[in-house]
């Protein structure tokens, strides 16, 4: 199933990826090919099959929710691109596309 340019723009927007015009065209073509290959799965009748929801062999188990030491704030802030008042600083939330 070939994707349209609008499809690619929609997906990129959902994924928060800015693409150049070149990239949009290239991904339109490549993603169409890949989706084409993937659609092979539709030929299987899975109406009686349960989806695999967990890879672990045994049942998932619960644990006590006990508070423990957290990573030091200054260590975590050290890796941030911009910091203010011991917090991550970001540009204004309002404005910009879309």
């Amino acid at each position, binding site marked *: 199933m070939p994707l349209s340019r609008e499809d690619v723009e929609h997906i990129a927007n959902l994924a928060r990826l800015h693409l*150049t015009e070149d990239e949009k065209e290239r991904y339109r073509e490549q993603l169409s090919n890949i989706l084409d290959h993937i659609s092979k799965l539709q030929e299987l009748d899975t109406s009686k*099959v349960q989806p*695999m929801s*967990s*890879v*672990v062999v*045994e049942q998932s188990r619960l644990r006590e929710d006990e508070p423990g030491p957290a990573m030091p704030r200054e260590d*975590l802030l050290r*890796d941030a*691109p911009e910091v203010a008042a011991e917090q991550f600083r970001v540009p204004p939330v309002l404005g910009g596309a879309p």
Partner: protein
Amino acid sequence: MSDLHRLTVTQALKGLRGGDFSSRELTAAYLKRIEQHNPRLNAYRHVAAEPALKAAVKADKQLAKGRKTKSKLPPLLGLPIAVKDVLTVAGMPATAGSRILEGFVPTYNATAVQRLLDAGVVILGKTNTDEFAMGSSTENSAYGVVRNPWDEERVPGGSSGGSAAAVAAGLAPVALGTDTGGSVRQPAALCGLTGLKTTYGRVSRYGLIAFGSSLDTVGVLAHSAQDAAAILGVMAGFDRRDATTLEDAAPKIKLNGKFELKGLKIGVPKEYFVEGLQPEVGQAVRAAIAQLETMGAQASEISLPHTEYALPVYYIIAPAEASANLARFDGVRYGLRVPEEALFDMFTHTRGQGFGPEVKRRIMIGTYALSAGYYEAYYGQAQKVRTLIRRDFEQAFEQVDLIAAPATPNSAFRIGAHSGAPLEMYLEDVFTLPANLAGVPGLALPAGFDSQGLPLSLQVIGPHFSEERLLQVGHAYQQTTDWHTITPMATLDAQP
């Protein structure tokens, strides 16, 4: 000793214990080789020369004290090791092969790394990888292509290509890798190494930069099954920071003494010997199976009927999980930020410039497969077919103990051979993906060479938590063959 880099892990540990050489000497020998060969091979992303030598000196003091007092020492004390750059090592840059993590220096160790450090290892550095472990050639690293030490015009496989090239070239005795769709076994196969993909839940994923959370496993690239076993025994087991690890997941692997292959039932899946398989790969695998038969194993043909659906299932599930996991890279907390006036634009430009082409491609596939209107048709259907693939393995393991098959469709391919053709590249993993979907362990074993002198490989796959048996079979095979002892080191060293 000038050949310290040729020692196996077992030999190196024995030499260290006995005082034949120091950890400092051993570490320095590897650092020297890294200096010599890494500029061409690009196997390491980050070399931690100073910290490694410091750790080695510390290990030597402990070793000397241990010899004097006859006290019990950590099992891997003084052993150098390389770590794939998708696992965190406190104080060392972690890039996952991506620009988007440039400058990120984690403050904590991955659990696998922590356990190895507790066991006394010396970390030489971080090895190059396809960006976020997405690739089968290590051409997708933002930090340059890794070259295969057997033929530098060829890829080492991927995504643990840096770890594979490092071990094959003697730039580390052993290395950690990760395997989400074949990323340990495929590069091991292409570089002539033993590569262990562990059972999902065997080794903690804490500190592993997540790609596909239901598929990701931590594994080992080594020169032998015995070397791989030494590392696995230390890093496996329950970790409260990863709820998918099992309580009793720490294996006690015994490879000493004779392991009896008599009565071992090996299944050979007919779906793995198909058109497109390089004839020499098929021949090498058949010869390896024949060898196991002479040792007492019984081989028979089996069927894994849904094998052909593994690739499409994988390329829905892995990208879907990746698109969610990689949402965290947004320019806020770590790594790259492209400055923009508004938050939304900062997100999209940071991600647009920070991620490479393959990562963006997979994020887009995953986002599409999870998006409204397509979820059931793609992701829902893939999860159902995944059940069928796992059932294939469960049914096979009711008849046989192990499965023997090719690890890869061909030997190492040329750099650039699949550029611009993502589907062609995906097909390189067609024999390794099914084990990840089922969550079972697999082991790639050197099994010969093709007419161009490139390594060929046998893959053995076992039921969940059968690593001990896989490694025993691998060890038995390596007791009677010498493919695993042949390395490209001499040719490499003869170069001007």
